[in-house]
């Protein structure tokens, strides 16, 4: 896709000859500040208001969820597994959201009741008398773990397999792409359900895989890289033929240098956008598994599991567990998708002036 050389007599050559007019830049000692792709990207992203707000919300959610244990030891929230009781030691089950009046205590099994945190009931309590606010915060850990781990795996596997296939044509490319097609042909949810069901019984695997969200995260990572690999491969195949890569090769650059310095930075945009998309999907799939009862086993709180339980409670009129867990889930995924959209616009060089 190269422009034909300007024919003689055209004045393309006349206007794009900066060396002929050095005095322009030197005028009044003003050097023209170069604008890098990175500056451009930031300018465009900042202009995308929704994406910036989403990034803020997402950062807040991540911070709260990651720091949950610290907040618990600071006494801001409670243990997500213990019950709340009132002055008389009666369990506070299905209490609607209300502000703290200082009469609520937590009762760990077999222990003395201690005063609960001030936030104990602001999202109400569930059917077992556990505080929904605490559980929503802790429930995010499964979602974010899955989102983060799956995202990392997809970005790594997809980029690696896609770039190898795209950079080495022929047999390597063919076999890798057949393998990618195979993985893409596997139905995600049905397999995830099977794995979710049997994971707790897979005793030969270490505990950190079978007991928490890590198993699901790894599975989703293994199954979801196909789309990105295809995109990266296509990008590599086109970039490989570009003049600047030819030039680098002619200058004696090693394959590694060409890939990491010249091709990969130019393929960053689809990698980032596709990975964001996968993170959102992974969080939804994990929540769906927990909802179906094949995710992280209770009593560990998860947004999907709480939504399932909240749905049953809402039938009896206790709407809060459903509403708060579902909102947390939707806001998180929505923020990720909005951010992804903003990133795509910001990384897409064709979208400079079009957008109004």
């Amino acid at each position, binding site marked *: 896709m190269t422009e034909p050389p300007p024919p003689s007599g055209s004045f393309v050559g006349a206007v794009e000859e900066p060396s002929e007019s050095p005095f322009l830049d030197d005028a009044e000692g003003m050097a023209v500040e170069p604008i890098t792709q990175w500056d451009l990207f930031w300018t465009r992203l900042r202009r995308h208001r929704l994406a910036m707000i989403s990034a803020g919300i997402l950062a807040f959610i991540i911070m709260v969820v990651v720091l949950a244990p610290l907040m618990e030891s600071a006494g801001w929230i409670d243990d997500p597994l213990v019950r709340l009781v009132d002055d008389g030691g009666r369990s506070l089950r299905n209490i609607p959201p209300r502000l703290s009046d200082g009469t609520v205590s937590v009762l760990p099994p077999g222990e003395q009741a201690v005063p609960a945190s001030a936030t104990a009931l602001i999202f109400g309590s569930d059917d077992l008398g556990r505080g929904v606010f605490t559980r929503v915060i802790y429930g995010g850990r499964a979602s974010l773990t899955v989102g983060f781990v799956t995202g990392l795996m997809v970005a790594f596997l997809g980029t690696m397999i896609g770039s190898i296939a795209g950079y080495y044509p022929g047999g390597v490319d063919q076999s890798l792409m057949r393998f990618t097609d195979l993985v893409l042909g596997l139905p995600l949810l*049905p397999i995830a359900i099977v794995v979710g069901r049997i994971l707790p019984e*897979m005793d030969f695997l270490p505990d950190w895989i079978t007991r928490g969200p890590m198993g699901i995260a790894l599975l989703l990572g293994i199954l979801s890289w196909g789309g990105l690999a295809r995109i990266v491969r296509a990008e590599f195949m086109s970039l490989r033929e570009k003049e600047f890569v030819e030039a680098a090769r002619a200058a004696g650059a090693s394959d590694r240098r060409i890939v990491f310095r010249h091709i990969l930075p130019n393929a960053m945009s689809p990698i980032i956008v596709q990975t964001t998309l996968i993170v959102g999907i992974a969080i*939804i799939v994990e929540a769906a598994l927990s909802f*179906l009862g094949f995710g992280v086993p209770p009593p560990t709180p998860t947004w*999907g599991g709480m*939504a399932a339980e909240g*749905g049953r409670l*809402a039938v009896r009129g206790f709407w809060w567990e459903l509403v708060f867990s579902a909102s947390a889930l*939707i806001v998180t995924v929505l923020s990720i998708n909005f951010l992804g959209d903003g990133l795509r616009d910001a990384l897409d060089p064709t979208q400079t002036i079009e957008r109004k």
Partner: protein
Amino acid sequence: MLSYITRRLVYGLVTLLALSMIVFTLLQLSGGGPLDRLKLNPRMQPVIQQLTELWGLDQPIWRQYVTWLKNYLTVSEFSVHNMLPFVAIGAAVVATVVLGKLMKSHWKGAAILGVWAIAMYIVFVNITIKFNWGISFQGAGDVWDLVFGRVGATFRLGLSALFLALIIGVPLGIYQAVRQYSFFDQLGTTASFVFFSTPIFIIGVGLQLIFALYFERWTGVKLFYVAGMNSSNYDTLSVAGKIGDTLRHLVLPAVSIALISLAGYARFQRASMLEVLHSDYLRTAKAKGLPRSKVIVKHALRNAMIPVVTLVSLDIAFMIGGAIITETIFGWPGIGRLYITAIGTIDYPVVMAIVMLIGIMIVIMNVVADILYGVMDPRVRYD
């Protein structure tokens, strides 16, 4: 083209084989045998005996897999009621050859696809074929009958949802693209994002609560049912009553699925339409003096529909898998709910049958999508 399709089908078979091995192995990894629950009941001893023999349960995993695969591919029943299937296939072959010679390239593919769809339908209706998919571990009977007894329900739900999503989502996306950056466009884009980002179980549960439970509690009117496919007194109802009853059961689950795919279609259609609207050939069409409506309908839509048609065929492929959650929420007696039940008890003949059905759908619809793509875009060549 034929060699291309054959190649795709062969790759598809390899994928299916891999899928079956993966899922089979996974199912075997669960602690405790699949027969554990049956063992609790002493009267089940002969059944256990029978199942063990049928599936070779006392043998190593790979032997069990081979046994399963052999059974899966074995035809246990085959009968033809009349000559019609053979006539249909013969006619389809003749039609393919004739149309292939006669028609312009991009209508040719569509016509041939249509002819084969009709032929296949005639074949299915007039033929009884049954594979030896075995007996469910839970004593629920023959797996083939169990699965195909539920196909109708799943397709009723899936096709209704697809229909809803298409007739709303596609025009919505087109309208948004034509009125880019208008208030309506912004609203549509935001709404699409919200639905796209909402897990289907939240939409399902939400609709169930709002429209069936709370609505009924506030107004005293029972508008929709929240569970099942028909009421228990369905057989006693009049024709109008039957239709009404069916619809009142169908609306909520169908809308749940439709809302999410609708958001996807609208977004996709909008993007695809925008790309076409900014193309040079559209400017040419305007410069010819074509009225705006004709520019959009004849020149823009035809091009903008190409990627959407592919998306829809892939959506059909995921119909069974996509309905798993919705069917569970709405107690819909389809394949998805059967899948969840079977997974719960590691009823592997049933689980395997359904997984393979999903896989086969994906392979077939992928090929169909490729053919449709070639049909709609004359630039695509299969070689």
